């Protein structure tokens, strides 16, 4: 049977769902992390370790990252990064997604703009603005 939420419960429901999902990153004993990967979805190029808790409490279904997630000495690769995986400290993958160049980067970057995201060995990778949103659909 389908789940149908009453309107009065929507905000509480999306906040609870959002908190429950982002809390999964904190399930391990240490801090969760976001791993940047090659297109094969398994080759690690950089691992940005977040804070614990990784996200703050959700408001209106939106949880915002606590501090920054950083890799100060990336593994690097000559190939472009196209995927990421968000994991807890026990290496359980919680969710995955894609990586790309931002629109602003295409304007300010030179030489490599449009050529994909190349992370060299020893690079510093900082994820400073992460949001996780849960919203009702349909």
């Amino acid at each position: 049977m389908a789940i149908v939420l009453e309107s009065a419960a929507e905000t509480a429901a999306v906040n609870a769902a959002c908190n429950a999902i982002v809390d999964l990153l904190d399930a391990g004993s240490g801090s969760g992390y976001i791993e940047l990967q090659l297109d094969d979805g398994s080759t690690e190029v950089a691992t940005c370790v977040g804070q614990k808790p990784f996200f703050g409490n959700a408001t209106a279904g939106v949880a915002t990252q606590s501090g920054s997630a950083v890799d100060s000495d990336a593994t690097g690769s000559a190939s472009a990064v196209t995927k990421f995986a968000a994991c807890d400290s026990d290496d359980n993958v919680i969710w995955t997604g894609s990586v790309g160049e931002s629109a602003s980067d295409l304007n300010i970057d030179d030489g490599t703009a449009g050529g994909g995201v190349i992370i060299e060995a020893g690079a510093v990778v900082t994820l400073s603005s992460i949001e996780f949103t849960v919203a009702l659909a349909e």
Partner: protein
Amino acid sequence: MNKMKVVMTAKGTVRNPNGESKEIELKAERFVTPTEAEKYGNRIGERRGNSGSQRGV
């Protein structure tokens, strides 16, 4: 029927040793089925008693 849509977005920078600096974006998006929503609901119940007080930064 209500479904939940889950979206994660992230922005950041890559500073390569050669001096190049690049902005990147990460994005994940999917719909949560009623079955998954029920699973998350169960997790909400499980976690209220042991980790809720750790957040609130």
